[in-house]
């Protein structure tokens, strides 16, 4: 068991996956790491159209509302909302509704990038490279019942698992745009697609599973990438430990 008694977990994206994940992480911190902090980061708002996949008590900023719902259940955990979008460092200067991952994150953070686009995920993972000790998880799903999770871990300034850009081109040149860098009109036109609550909850569950194994039990992550398909009833894991051989 990891002996670190006060942690900071940072959930970036409090929507379809982050909404479920934050509640699970809150329980872990409350009962196993009292005195820890759970930070919720999201510049987006809960809207009626989200109600088919997410439980929320009112409309408004996702980070603020989720924090107000979770905090009363957690007496020994500090739930900290940050109602901001993640943007590139050069785009955060002088603005109050955005923040760069470099400004947000700290050494020893355990980070969950559960946003709905690769562009913002890339910003979070790239920022991770400046820290000596950090864990960054991401999880996402497609429009149906398939999805995956990934774990990037750094210790003492070294990549223990591969940065996702080592194999995933979407972390080099994202095919989408970061809503944090869009206008309000562009954001309001975004479509959440036809995601399922089953895939959202499965991603959250796999992320919690990786947290138990690699953070609470402090075990090496030999399955840093996991792909699943709920329709087929299958999951497969991939070794992403950073013992790269150049051939």
């Amino acid at each position, binding site marked *: 068991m990891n002996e670190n008694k006060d942690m900071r977990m940072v959930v970036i*994206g409090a*929507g*379809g*996956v*982050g909404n479920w994940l934050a509640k699970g992480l809150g329980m872990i911190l409350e009962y196993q790491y009292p005195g820890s902090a759970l930070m919720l980061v999201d510049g987006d708002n809960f809207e009626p159209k989200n109600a088919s996949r997410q439980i929320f008590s009112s409309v408004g900023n996702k980070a603020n509302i989720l924090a107000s719902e979770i905090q009363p259940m957690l007496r020994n955990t500090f739930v900290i909302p940050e109602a901001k979008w993640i943007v590139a460092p050069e785009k955060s200067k002088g603005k109050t509704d955005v923040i760069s991952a470099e400004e947000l994150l700290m050494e020893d953070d355990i980070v969950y990038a*559960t*946003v*709905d*686009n*690769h562009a913002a*995920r890339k910003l979070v993972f790239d920022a991770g490279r400046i820290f000596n000790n950090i864990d960054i998880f*991401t*999880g*996402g*799903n*497609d*429009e149906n019942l*398939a*999805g*995956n999770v*990934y774990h990037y871990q750094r210790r003492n300034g070294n990549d223990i698992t591969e940065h*996702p850009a080592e*194999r*995933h*081109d*979407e*972390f080099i040149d994202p095919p*989408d745009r970061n809503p944090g860098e869009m206008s309000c009109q562009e954001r309001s036109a975004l479509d*959440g*697609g036809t*995601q399922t609550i089953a895939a*959202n909850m499965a*991603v959250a569950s796999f992320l919690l599973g990786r947290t138990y194994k690699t953070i609470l039990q402090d075990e090496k992550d030999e399955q840093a*990438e996991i*792909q*699943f*398909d709920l329709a*087929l009833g*299958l*999951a*497969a894991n*991939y070794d992403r430990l950073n*013992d*790269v*051989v*150049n*051939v």
Partner: protein
Amino acid sequence: MQNTQAQKATANNMAMIKSGVNNQAIPCAGKTVAQVRRELGGAFGIDPEAKAYKGKAQLSDTYVIESSDNIEFVRKLGEKG
């Protein structure tokens, strides 16, 4: 005797192909990465641009797959969340 040899040849023609949740022995030794990507793309959901790896080593499209190879075609990480 002939049957045994045929079975052995067939077995020697196999390589493990992995992509997403799929992980299966396929008789594809002797084919290039590009050929296998094209032929299995539909069944395995392999993206036409998917990079191929043998362990930690990235393979070129012209790499000829050998029997008993373990080949991964990288599947994109999920976008939505």
